[in-house]
């Protein structure tokens, strides 16, 4: 059962706030539902998003960063950029706000089960990828080989450092972390942009190998030729879009690309699908 009024947010309390990056532009907010029933109604899949609803400020669509296998809370990582995100960054643990969702489709887990997965993520688009990796780790036997290429400008800009270290130590997935540049003499991961690193470490293309690619437009632009070169078919490349949104439920007409509504028919599309849609993203 979900809320019969799809515009009505579930009340939540901010339970914890983590500053993720050295420039403090990204914070992770951990929310707890005031009414435990709402947590069940909010059942989600990795790749979905929700509207964070701040009374007096407005609503913003944000990818869900926690995994469906993590119970008792939901997490979102938010970049401070405009009206609502700046306000959210000023809020405190204990404050009450709202959460509406979950919304949109998800990475196609029905298809991805049993397959090798290559994840290529850049910058703060890593949020729903964190959800996905955590979920796959908690269901490790259901997937083939998992490779994660994740990059940021500098070590201090990488999200979820604790998780990254833990995943690497566990050795159940292949982590390929990179930063554009660093003078840290102890840096033990890659240096350089994401696309060349992906080219080096990506598993060979096959019917059983899928790539999920999320990141800034530049990263996407230079990663696509790499995947093409490696032979990844366009229906095996999965992406997530971020069009401007309001309602999140396909009503307000804001987020369309052609006849697709990104909030409801997306935000996850294969490259094959995107090739047949106007480039309005």
């Amino acid at each position: 059962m979900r809320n019969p009024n799809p515009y009505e947010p579930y009340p939540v309390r901010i339970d914890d706030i983590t500053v993720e990056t050295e420039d403090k532009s990204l914070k992770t907010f951990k929310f707890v539902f005031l009414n435990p029933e709402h947590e069940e109604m909010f059942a989600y899949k990795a790749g979905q998003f929700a509207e964070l609803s701040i009374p007096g400020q407005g609503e913003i669509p944000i990818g869900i960063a926690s995994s469906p296998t993590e119970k008792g809370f939901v997490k979102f990582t938010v970049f401070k950029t405009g009206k609502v995100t700046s306000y959210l960054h000023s809020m405190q643990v204990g404050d009450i706000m709202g959460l509406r969702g979950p919304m949109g489709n998800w990475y196609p887990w029905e298809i991805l089960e049993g397959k090798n997965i290559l994840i290529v993520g850049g910058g703060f688009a890593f949020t729903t990828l964190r959800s996905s990796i955590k979920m796959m780790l908690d269901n490790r036997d259901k997937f083939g080989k998992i490779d994660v290429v994740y990059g940021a400008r500098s070590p201090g800009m990488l999200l979820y450092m604790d998780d990254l270290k833990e995943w690497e130590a566990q050795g159940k997935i292949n982590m390929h972390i990179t930063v554009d540049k660093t003078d840290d003499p102890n840096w033990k991961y890659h240096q350089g942009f994401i696309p060349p690193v992906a080219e080096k470490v990506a598993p060979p293309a096959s019917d059983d190998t899928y790539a999920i690619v999320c990141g800034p437009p530049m990263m996407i632009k230079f990663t696509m030729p790499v995947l093409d070169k490696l032979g990844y078919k366009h229906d095996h490349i999965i992406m997530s879009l971020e069009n401007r949104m309001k309602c999140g439920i396909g009503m307000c007409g804001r987020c369309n690309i052609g006849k697709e509504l990104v909030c409801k028919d997306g935000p996850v599309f294969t490259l094959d699908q995107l090739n047949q849609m106007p480039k309005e993203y």
Partner: protein
Amino acid sequence: MSYIRIAKASWDGGLEKARKAYELIGPVPEKDSHKYAVLAAGQLPDMGFKSTKLSPKWVVFPQSEVMFEYTLDESKANHHILQEVPAAPGARAVIGIRPYDAKAIQLTKMNFDNKDYKDPFWLRNYERCTFVGLAINEPSSTDFSTSCGTGPFAEEGLDVLLVDAGDAFIAKVLTDKGKKFLSEAGFAEEAGADAAKAVEDLKAKAEAAITSKVSYNKIAGKTIMDLYDAPFWKDVLFGCINCGTCTYACPTCWCFDIQDEVKGTDGVRVRNWDSCMTGLFTHHASGHNPREHEWERTRQRFMHKLKYFVDKYDAGLMCVGCGRCVEQCPANIDIRTVCNTLNDF
């Protein structure tokens, strides 16, 4: 199908009676045109009106509608928790709505009432309504409704269709809601056997008077990308200043924005009409805008009405041919030309 005769001499009295059961909405003069408004006590609709600048879509989809209220005062219980604004009570009768505007409400219903989500605000407004339509005996030169799946005497979406037959209205009763309205108003005189024929004659005459047409039979067979990438867009849409008039005037445009408004510690969440003609509509926080140029926004409006909607619902165009955008566009952009250009491309 039953027909009721309403002598014009008894019309005003009947509406007064109907007021006991309904809030009345109808056409009233405004400057050089008319508008649909809630009729104040004693106020009667001007049934001789020709057209209205805005359609009555606001009855189900108000230009501005409060959805939720809340308090930011932390000393109060439930602070920061949104409370749905209760539905306005009572039934409403929309008198004199044109058949194309009633059809437009049915088209937008596909958006607001779908298998995934029901828009509770739109639906509760809709369910309150009884639509008492008025057929168009003399269509305007910009009316092309007959080629858009409706027409001057079309019945879809109406509960009663009134036909002006000189000294009387002939009321064609279409639904139980319509029957109830007529009985609340005390309109009970069965029209004679010739009423159906009189209506058919007037209908044929009105339909014949519409010479303006669009064709879209070939649009569904083309791909979105072919039409989207067609070379004619910049030429056809040259001159559009993105004023948004067409989107507000259009009975089938439904895009909206949601905003929070706060006074002291009392807040409301409101939805307002929005327009795909504005740059801010799609502007990302990063500064990137997927529809950066003015003509791209105009293309979006026409592609939505003439192609995306057609593909998505298989219910024809998202245009009822009312002609409002044709009449009111300051740049003389004409959806008929755009539609025919797409069809012939």
